[in-house]
């Protein structure tokens, strides 16, 4: 089973499937009752067009379903984000 320390996740780079930079992971949101991870809170890269993301103050929120891979960086599928929006 693949388990990761949540503390180590913060500060990881978030990228899309094309290798484009989205931002830096700030926090992870989970459902307290079930423990299911629901969202990533990301500090967007300066050059990113944030209009297609859900914004929350200076951060953008990405649904956890859009996450494709997590290792040295976090890969998210932009299509998955748009479908929900």
């Amino acid at each position: 089973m693949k388990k990761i320390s949540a503390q180590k996740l913060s500060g990881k780079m978030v990228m899309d499937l094309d290798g484009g930079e989205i931002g830096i992971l700030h926090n992870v949101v989970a459902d307290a009752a079930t423990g299911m991870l629901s969202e990533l809170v990301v500090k967007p890269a300066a050059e990113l067009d944030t209009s297609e993301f859900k914004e929350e103050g200076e951060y953008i929120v990405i649904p956890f379903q859009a996450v494709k891979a997590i290792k040295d960086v976090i890969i998210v599928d932009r299509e998955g984000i748009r479908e929900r929006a």
Partner: protein
Amino acid sequence: MEIELSSLYGQDIYTDRGVYVGKIEDVSVDIKEKRISGLAVRNINPYAFKVGKKKGVIIPYRWVTAIGDIVLIKHVSRRRAAEEEKEREEEEIEK
């Protein structure tokens, strides 16, 4: 209720019988299952968990009964705590 994982760090854990367990240091997440797998706890109360020389334990998230200003878990016997120690050792090997 939705919680930010970073808000858990430093929170105190008690059992549902009011026994202090320790302080949350980190949260272990299962990427494949997309869920929290456990809470890494330090500053362990030796009367709640026998940890020996180890610095902490990982409490499986399924033991958690409530999260608010503090975290409550099911009351467990020392024997089960020893089993968790074993789990933690296995996790450290994976790392």
